[in-house]
Each structure stands twice: as C-alpha cells, then as structure tokens.
C-alpha cells in the first residue's frame, strides 16, 4: 500500500508540471489582397542566438514549393519532416486562417523569435514577412507583415 501511494505521488508530481507547462496558443493570420494564387507561409522559431529551433506551422502541402520560403528552407534544408503533422492548406488572397497549437509555456519571454516566410507563385518571395519576439507583451497585438500578411495576432 505504501509503495502504491509513493508511486502515485511520484507519478502525479511528474505529470502535473508537464501539463501546466503547455498551453493552447492561437495564431490568427489575415492575408492582404495581393491578387495572386494562394500563399504558402512557414512559421518557425529561432532562439536568442538566431539558431533554428523548430517549425510551428506550414501553410501549403506541396514540398516542391518550400524552397521559395527561403528563410525556412535555409534553416531546415527543406526537410519536410520538420512540418510533418503541422501542415495545412495554402491561404488565398484576402482570406484568413486561425491555427491553435498546444505549445510549451517556456517559449514565451525566453528569447525565442517567431519568423514567418511567405511566397506566392509568380510573385516576389517574402522571407522575413514577419519577425517578432515570442513574448507575452506581444500577445493580442496585431503584427503587420511586409507583403502578403496583413496581420498576425497571437492569443492564448
């Protein structure tokens, strides 16, 4: 009985912090009216030193176009496994997409930076469409893009 209680306590102690450290975070992206084909965009994270940490979302499922997301492609070598399970459809001009991800809490206010690269067929590529620190201060704010993304809003 004593062993069972100890095991239970230990399991709870290990599990609860794990649950508490994750949170659903929503990325709401509104595209500009750029009057072109659907846009591909990649959202990925670098650390305080600028090194690639991982990808958060890929809009666009055909890997042959990923090289046009030049920042992401350079960081990953175009490795589609980096966006396996976190890939959705490309997004049309003037459309919006809302993606909710269960992210680690430690991502915020730890020096991580969110990058968004965007590309549209037969139109200029837009690496660094958005570059913004992942901080709680930026939550709820509409962050403007350079060319194809009108705004990106991160909320909890």
């Amino acid at each position: 009985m004593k062993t069972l209680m100890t095991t239970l306590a230990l399991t709870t102690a290990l599990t609860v912090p794990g649950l508490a450290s994750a949170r659903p975070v929503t990325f709401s992206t509104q595209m500009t009216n750029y009057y072109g084909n659907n846009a591909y965009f990649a959202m990925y994270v670098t650390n305080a030193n600028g090194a690639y940490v991982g990808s958060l979302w890929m809009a666009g499922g055909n890997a042959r176009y990923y090289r046009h997301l030049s920042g992401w492609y350079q960081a990953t070598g175009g490795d589609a496994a980096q966006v396996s399970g976190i890939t959705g459809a490309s997004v049309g001009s003037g459309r919006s997409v809302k993606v909710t991800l269960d992210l680690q809490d430690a991502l915020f206010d730890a020096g991580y930076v969110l990058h968004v690269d965007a590309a549209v067929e037969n139109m200029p590529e837009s690496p660094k469409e958005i570059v913004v620190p992942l901080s709680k201060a930026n939550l709820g704010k509409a962050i403007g893009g350079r060319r194809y993304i009108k705004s990106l809003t991160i909320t909890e």
Partner: protein
Amino acid sequence: MKSAFALLALTAAVGTSVFGALSAAPIPAPDVTVTPTATLMQSTSSTAALVGSALVGSAQVVTSPAAITSAQTDAPAAHIVLADNDSDEHWFKSRKKHHDDENDDEDDDDGGMGSKAMNPAPAGTAPPPANGLFNNATPPQVQAN
C-alpha cells in the same frame, strides 16, 4: 632568307583575302546579308593555314569599305535587323529554357519513390514533430475563412 619567305607567304595570304573580298563586294542587295559570311569563309579558307584568325579579321577590315558601301547603297538596315532578331531569339529561348528547367526541377520533386522532397503529413494525421515546442498530446486545430 627564311624571313623573306615568311613575308612572301604573308603578302600572298593578304592579297588573296583582299581579292576574294573585293570580288564578293558587288553582290546585289538580297545577298548582302550573306556577303560578310561568304567573305569571312573565303578569307578563312584561304588564309587560315598560314596566318590564322587574327589576319582574317584584318583582311575583313580591309574589305569592309567596299562591303559597307554596298550595304549603304542597297540595304543599309539588313545587317542590323538580322543581328538584333538573332540576339532576341537567343535571349528569349534561353529565358524560356530557364523557365522550363525550373518547372522540370519542381516536377522532379513532386512526390513518388526516390523524389528529393516528400510532402509532409497534414495536420491531424500525424503527431507534431518532437522539436520541443509542442505538447504532443493535442493535435493542431485549424479554422480557415
């Protein structure tokens, strides 16, 4: 004696080129576009063995007043138009080829066995990558408008 023979050979070569070029000069207008090529080929065939391409160039310069005179009087724009068309065509072709090559590259990557880039698993069909950013218990949720 040796140098005198070389000089003689050189003189003969230049003379042959000049004669060939001059004899080609009075060809009528429709053939003017061909004339420089014919002159060049004739010069080349007659002199290449002895003096090489540099002398061919100078022989053509020697003949050019006659050729220019003929071109100016008969069809002054013929050379220029032909040259421009040729240049544009090559440029266009190369640009088209580049475009085709680009498409070919992208087609090569389009899935299939042995392709360079396989498409990633769509959200919800596979867990997110273990990159330390996700709590893998919950799959991404997407809402598009």
